[in-house]
């Protein structure tokens, strides 16, 4: 008897019967020349499968326990599908929060609901630019609700093609193109992510673990700065809360994140392939274009009876110094309000909003976010003439 392998090879190499009239036996259904059977390696499959299952279950359990032991807890991943689920719940009169992670961490939905009479829909996103979302809501002819837009200039005025813009654009694109399968996957992910700590797409994946390896780079290599580690939890409404480990004053985690914000918020050096002046002109044009686009979007929303208010959320320490230097209020916030004619709330203009400290320089702790939201509500009511 021939071995299955020689049989397999022979079958694979059978010449096809071009233009020859096949015999009756060779015709459908089934004749020897057209039939094909894959060989099955003759190994003890049952035993091997049992060992594989045991090893995989044990390794997964060990990894889960380890992740929990070093401070990770179960929470939802923020991705386009979760965002899309929230975006789908926007009705024509909804109260919507858009923008970056400060509008995400620093806002308490319960306090806003109490103070503004409506439960807000959280569409702000970490590291994201709010403009694509704003533009999409402006394009939606039925929308005439209220928008609270968080403004962190480095993100809100990020030029096209940069990660913050791409983040926002990807989310909007997913909202318009989400397939039933993607939606189903998100619903299936909920119970898993709510119970398993190591399911952190931006932190504990193989890719992100490899990024932590301390490998020195070539001098002058334009390697993107690292992103901050896990410091918050998220629920199905996309309410983000800072974890206690990060909120604790002087914690190692908060200090580590502070040092990550600095390179992230520092403008990258101009590229080498175009002259610096030309690059600066291009950037200037892009920012000018963004002001114009935001103004157009705001006008569209307001023309339909919608309302919008821009909010600058607290930030502190070295990051505040950096932002004040690189994106000063006079060049970003003031022209934004002037051009759009929309109301704005700059936290430092109001003593009751100015006294908050951000543990990792960029976001409020979960407790402070509740208090801050409570104090922000009257200002929002006034700005929105509610």
């Amino acid at each position, binding site marked *: 008897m021939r071995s299955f392998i020689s049989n397999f090879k022979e079958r694979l190499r059978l010449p096809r019967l071009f233009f020859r009239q096949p015999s009756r036996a060779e015709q459908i259904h089934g004749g020897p020349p057209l039939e094909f059977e*894959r060989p099955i390696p003759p190994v003890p499959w049952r035993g091997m499968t049992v060992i594989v299952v045991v090893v995989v279950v044990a390794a997964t359990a060990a990894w889960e326990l380890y992740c929990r032991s070093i401070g990770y807890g179960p929470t939802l991943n923020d991705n386009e599908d979760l965002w899309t689920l929230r975006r789908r719940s926007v009705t024509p009169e909804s109260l919507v929060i858009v923008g970056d992670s400060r509008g995400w961490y620093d806002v308490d939905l319960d306090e806003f609901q109490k103070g503004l009479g409506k439960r807000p829909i959280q569409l702000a996103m970490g590291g994201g630019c709010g403009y694509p979302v704003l533009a999409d809501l402006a394009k939606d002819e039925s929308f005439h609700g209220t928008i609270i837009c968080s403004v962190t200039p480095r993100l809100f005025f990020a030029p096209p093609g940069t990660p913050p813009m791409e983040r926002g654009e990807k989310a909007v694109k997913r909202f318009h193109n989400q397939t039933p399968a*993607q939606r189903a996957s998100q619903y299936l992910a909920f119970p898993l992510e709510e119970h398993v700590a190591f399911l952190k797409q931006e932190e504990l994946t193989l890719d992100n*673990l490899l990024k932590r390896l301390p490998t020195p780079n070539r001098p002058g290599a*334009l*390697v993107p700065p690292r992103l901050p580690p896990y410091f918050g939890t998220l629920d199905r409404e996309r309410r983000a809360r800072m974890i206690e480990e990060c909120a604790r004053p002087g914690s190692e985690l908060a200090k580590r994140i502070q040092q990550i914000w600095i390179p992230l918020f520092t403008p990258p050096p101009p590229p080498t392939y175009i002259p610096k002046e030309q690059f600066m002109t291009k950037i200037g044009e892009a920012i000018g274009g963004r002001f114009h686009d935001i103004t157009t979007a705001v006008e569209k929303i307001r023309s339909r009876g919608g309302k919008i208010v821009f909010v600058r959320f607290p930030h502190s320490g070295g990051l505040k110094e950096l932002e004040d230097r690189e994106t000063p209020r006079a060049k970003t916030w003031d022209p934004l309000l002037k051009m759009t004619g929309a109301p704005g709330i700059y936290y430092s203009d109001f003593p009751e909003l100015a006294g908050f400290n951000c543990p990792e320089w960029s976001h409020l702790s979960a407790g402070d976010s509740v208090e801050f939201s409570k104090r922000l509500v009257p200002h929002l009511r006034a700005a929105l003439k509610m």
Partner: protein
Amino acid sequence: MLFNSLTFVVFFVVVVTLYWSIASWTLRKNLLVVAGYIFYGAWNPPFAALLFSTTAMDFWLGRQIGKAKDRHAKRRWLVASVCMNLSMLGFFKYGNFLLQNFQWLLARIGIIYQPPHLDILLPVGISFYTFHSLSYTLDIYRGVLQPTKSLRDFILAVSFFPQLVAGPIVRAGDFLPQLVRPQPLRTGQFLWGVAMMTLGLFEKIVLADTLLSGSADRVFGYVGPLVALDSWAGVIAFAGQIFFDFAGYSTCAIGAALTLGFHLKDNFRFPYAAIGFSDFWRRWHISLSTFLRDYLYIPLGGNQVRPFRAALNLVIVMFLGGLWHGAAWTFVVWGLLHGSYLVIERVCRILFEDKAWANNLATRVLAGAATYAAVCIAWVYFRAADFTIASRMLGGMFGQHPHGDAILSTREMLQVALVTVGMISVHWSLRDSNIETAVTRLPRWTVTAAWALMACAIILTQGTSNAFIYFQF
């Protein structure tokens, strides 16, 4: 739905459980038809209707070809089938491309025409299922297949979910015979299918998406000039990414089919160990290359014609093969490059085949390395979004930008280097063998450990549901 998604895991478990719980072969086949349409409709439900209409038309046309008395009548029905399939493909896939090129042509003769942009959504996998379906009428015309009497069987042959959207391109003649008799449940076959799915997902999620795609995306997405090291690293990363992405899908498809008792042929056979380009195309996307060979190259005369015509045939086939991959001239250039490679190889064979040195080990290794390098150069056109990017990449690769930027981290370059060396080593060590032989010959503990390691790596990577590259084709 994607193989690397939670929805698929649930879908697959439900389908497999139901399938093996049902005793009736007819009901099992019905279940697979329903499963195929759910699998496909999970992307965009209305496109399932398009899939059905293509299938039903080809079923009917196949019968007409079978019933036709003379060659001319058969040909007329075949032409109808080819036109129907290709016009569907043309409209959805090439509509905007054709309009843009028409506009460009008019502009050359001074006519300014602004065509409307057709907002056409490309049905996922249309290139694959069109070819699945078309193979049926072509084979009936060629006389190697008789029309099936069962519409349900034909629908299942086209919409069998493992191979529906990204191949392998399974010909009706290879699949329909498997629908005659019920396939028994064999534990070994089922578990080997699961192991192959693990391998396929490992290739896609871990090797392609996690270890290679980042470098390839950054290099091809960078707008400035790059130094040679980064340019080559990006291209080599893409060479690995596209292999693991597509071969991973094919391996998953073969594994999923095995768990249901069906047998699909290999779509890849260690292509980066190819010595020469004809060898490469016998190893890369085999179901497409054999499709083009049988239904295009041989009818054009194949190599049974004068050398110049045979060379032209090769170029025509590769031109169309390139266009099949996407509606862009960059894909055409990629195809033409491969066509040229094949012609050059043929000339070299004529000139040097008899020489003693032509078959020694050193020559074979050199030829293998040259094949890999040339394939990588062609990938530049495949991956680049336009010719500006492609020429900038090639410029970087061949040292035109010594003062260009370096953008890859040491870690990224190490990942690309390690995965590529590993991939090429495996390809060379198995080039005259197959995965089944390797599994049989390796110590049991090695196979078990590799399987467990791959499963753990997949779980650790958490799969971000990146679409497979070949879905867009």
